[in-house]
């Protein structure tokens, strides 16, 4: 019987990462769209970096930083007594960095296309900046949010290079579906590779299709 554990693990990783990226990415995307600070282009470039860097390069630096001798990893070991690398938490952190621009950019674009005067109107009507964000900006940017969710989820689902570097291929913990398929190919177990790949494609298609369907329904409200 086919082991679908890696597929479930990948689904979990993609879900958790996407949720975190929306929660943390939305305020960042908002700041990037509204600020006139000189730091804006700098931050924007940094956010876009994971698109440019080869995943193995990104993974390599994460291996160092999240490792027990690294800036973040050593702190984690002190806190929990366990390593951040070769753990699901470590993968979540790595995936958040890897998929960051795929979540932030669609949200930022949506926020940027909002009319500034529309927001000003909300402020004059008594809405604080936070209130205006939730009551005006967010509802008018739903398309951007859906885009962000779809892209971040899909991107993380297909993640390979970064996971390869910091995951350690531990079954049930870091052995995600892309690694499992890769291993099947490496060990000439092509039948298993086909099956798992098909399962991944089917899962991804159903998920993405559903999201786009929701997007469509939202449009014609």
């Amino acid at each position: 019987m086919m082991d679908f554990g890696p597929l479930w693990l990948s689904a979990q990783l993609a879900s958790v990462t996407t949720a975190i990226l929306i929660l943390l990415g939305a305020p960042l995307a908002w700041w990037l769209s509204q600020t006139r600070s000189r730091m804006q282009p700098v931050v924007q470039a940094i956010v876009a970096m994971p698109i440019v860097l080869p995943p193995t390069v990104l993974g390599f630096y994460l291996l160092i930083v999240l490792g027990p001798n690294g800036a973040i990893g050593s702190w984690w070991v002190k806190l929990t007594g366990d390593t951040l690398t070769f753990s699901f938490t470590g993968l979540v952190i790595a995936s958040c960095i890897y998929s960051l621009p795929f979540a932030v950019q669609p949200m930022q674009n949506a926020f940027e296309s909002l009319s500034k005067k529309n927001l000003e109107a909300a402020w004059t009507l008594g809405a604080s900046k936070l209130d205006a964000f939730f009551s005006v900006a967010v509802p008018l940017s739903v398309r951007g949010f859906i885009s962000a969710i779809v892209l971040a989820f899909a991107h993380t689902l297909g993640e390979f290079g970064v996971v390869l570097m910091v995951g350690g291929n531990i079954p049930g913990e870091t052995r995600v579906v892309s690694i499992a398929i890769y291993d099947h190919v490496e060990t000439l177990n092509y039948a298993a590779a086909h099956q798992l790949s098909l399962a991944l494609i089917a899962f991804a298609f159903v998920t993405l299709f559903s999201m786009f369907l929701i997007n469509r329904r939202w449009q014609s409200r």
Partner: protein
Amino acid sequence: MSFFRYFALFAVLASTSSFADESLTIAVASNFQVTAKEIAAEFTAVTQIPTRISAGSTGKLYAQIINGAPFDVFLSADAARPKLLEENGLAVKGSRVTYATGALILWSADSELENQDCLAALKSGSYRWLAIANPLTAPYGSAAKEFLEAVGVFEKIESRIVYGENISQTLQFVVTGNATLGLIALSQVKGGLPVDASCSWNVPSTMHTAIEQQAVLLASSDNADAARRFMTFLQSAQVTTLLERRGYTVPE
């Protein structure tokens, strides 16, 4: 596209293929890449035949070969893949040779193990992670597992094992401190590492199946003469010296 563009494209393609006729394309397992480049350079110096190295994981290269990749020689990290190629008729019968035998070494860069007994530390299990290569995909990995079983600690420390996709990644885990201990290739240590060992222990070759790295001449090669010369050169005394210096042993 205009006539001139078609002509230019044709000329480029024609010249490229004619160039390929002259040089030898060698598919090499990634972990042997550096040594292979040295050997290829010496080969070219001796024979004036230019070479091109295409490195990758053994599994990837195998998949490419069975799908018609234009390699002349295949230097694998294991014996299984070359054997399969020979059985499938994709490699020239009788061309399969063991060009190097790898050796395992237990190794650590962790300062807490400075001058300690490495093997005792391994057996104690008092560390978070031990890195070995994936036994399913890398011969160094299956040898490492056999060694661990031979000293009777595999079951005890199984939950502490982290698997590198290949021996290179295994090394990375140890060098970056993510794994306290690792079973890596002696050739990696001989090749020079960015950090110093705190402790190390050479694994006797009797404790595991030999890590035989085999090479084959590919049937699809259109450069058979040059390829044969390379295979012969691979087993020459000159290369033997090079390999031994790099931590490999060579069959008699």
